[in-house]
């Protein structure tokens, strides 16, 4: 029964991983650029939720929209100010650009908010459910369900709307899309905005039950890479399945061999997948 409980809590966390990784995979698929600051975006969203509560005295209902809008704006600004220019440059410039951004965000947070761990009050989304013997915190259940719904929404946006078709057209072939009257620059800015918003929502959800610190972004970035590589680059359904799988694997390894080794298992798995199937488990090409 405990094993089942571990699996369920892993699935709920995995849904949040899937959410911010779907933003990472969208950016990646659109323009073949990796956002090394993706986890730090999530970290900023967690602080946004925290300050919305402590400074503005807003309830948890507001956390998601506020963080989503702030991070959408950040994504667009980062694209226009930095990524648009380095994307055409050499590989080293692409890596340095977003990596430098990660350092600036992480240590600016360090400097502004100090290294102390903070957290939202535990009873903000109160209580623990008992579902047939499985005990689940309400905050984790809420986070997992909302993340799942929004990830599916992102998939529907890409596959079932005209806007999604335009985005995918640019990802497929920039020049052909231009000939069809689509402006690639706008679509890519939008992809960065959506990528930012996905981290915003994910961060606001994680903040409900997780400690907040400037350094939390580093491991989240790596988890994002693992999920995207497993799921195949550019695939939102792939990110969803891989995110859920990583959540469960992480929870199981923490339970079976100890919390300090959960990252070891995830990173080792990542390397193994890169070595055996560089295109991802569900990827084609």
């Amino acid at each position, binding site marked *: 029964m405990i094993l089942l409980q571990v699996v369920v809590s892993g699935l709920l966390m995995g849904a949040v991983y899937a959410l911010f990784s779907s933003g990472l995979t969208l950016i990646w698929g659109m323009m073949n650029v*990796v956002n090394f600051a993706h986890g730090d975006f999530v970290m900023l969203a967690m602080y946004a939720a925290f300050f919305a509560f402590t400074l503005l005295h807003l309830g948890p209902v507001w956390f998601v929209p506020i963080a989503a809008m702030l991070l959408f704006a950040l994504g667009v600004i980062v694209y226009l100010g930095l990524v648009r220019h380095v994307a055409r*440059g050499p590989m*080293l410039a*692409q890596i340095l650009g977003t990596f430098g951004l990660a*350092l600036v965000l992480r240590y600016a947070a360090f400097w502004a908010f100090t290294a102390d761990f903070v957290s939202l009050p535990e009873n903000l989304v109160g209580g623990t459910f008992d579902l047939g013997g499985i005990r689940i915190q309400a905050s984790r259940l809420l986070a997992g369900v909302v993340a799942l719904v929004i990830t599916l929404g992102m998939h529907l946006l890409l596959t079932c709307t005209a806007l999604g078709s335009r985005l995918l057209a640019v990802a497929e072939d920039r020049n052909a899309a231009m000939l069809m009257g689509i402006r690639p620059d706008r679509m890519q800015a939008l992809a960065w905005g959506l990528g930012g918003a996905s981290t915003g929502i994910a961060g606001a959800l994680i903040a409900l039950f997780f400690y907040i610190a400037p350094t939390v972004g580093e491991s989240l970035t*790596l988890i994002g890479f693992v999920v995207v590589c497993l799921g195949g680059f550019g695939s939102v359904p792939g990110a969803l399945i891989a995110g859920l799988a990583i959540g469960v694997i992480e929870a199981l390894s923490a339970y079976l061999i100890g919390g300090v080794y959960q*990252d*070891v298992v995830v990173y080792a798995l990542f390397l193994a997948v890169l070595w055996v199937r560089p295109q991802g488990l569900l990827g084609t090409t």
Partner: protein
Amino acid sequence: MITPGRALAIVGLLAIAVWPLAVQDVFLQRVGALVLLAAISASAWNLLGGYAGQVSVGHALYFGIGAYAGLVVYTEWGWPPIAGAPLGVAVSATLAIVVGLPTFRLRGHYFSMATIAAAELARILAANWPLLGAAVGLMGPPRPRTIADLSFTSPVPYHYLFLAVLLALLGLTALMQRSRMGYYLAAIRGGDRAARSLGVPVLRYKLYALLLSASFTSIAGTLYAVMVGFVDPDSVLGILVSVKMIIIAALGGAGTLYGPLVGATILIPLEETTNALLGGGGTGITYIIYGAIIVFVARFQPGGVAALWRHAAAWRARRAARGTHAA
């Protein structure tokens, strides 16, 4: 022929050679030694990341192995820390082959991500391995037992030790640059597929570059452990150790001989000054500045200082040509 570039290199190296004798201040002498140490590890990274264009973000793996090797031979067998250098190089080279061979099939970002994951894996394992002192780390000899411990209060001996290693590395790099390997690496940097179609044995030469790069990074790690006398997982295996090598090389000019030394000469004094001025709280500021610098380098001048120098040289050449034309 004495070109402006060569003249500058000779003057610069001479200035570095007399620096600890010219300044009597211990802080400045220490900064000089740290510049050289950073230049060694960044030049070592440059062999793979600059010349071969394989951007590793996990070189802390080899730096950490070298650093831990230095102090493990002391804590386990009582050897002087510098005696750990061959052990560090052997372990680094072995791991370079184990990690490198499968990773080199990956191109671009995937290679960078794989190297981060490998280094993070090593950091977490070191932080939980009692032989390596787990999260607490290892200490070197508290006071020098013999001269072989290379434990000095003055930074000056370190300065010349590091300078000797750096000159050896730069000499080797210059030789490589002019050899067949230099051209092969340049072709690989231009693109795997194109290089292969020209008949370059891509995998083999990437591996040579990695072996050379990892060995010298490991030596830099051992030298760090010898000078500082203390290592822990974050200070030698943390992601910032890798990032620092990249920033220094990229600022000076990745894939150029003197780029890493130039980068270290700019960044290390900056870091030491902010740390000295702001105390412990300065670490955060230092990394904000570091991050801002690399964002700017990436955005406006991916070639670093070396590219500025080339532009200036081209401008001088044009002006000279115009001058002779007018006359």
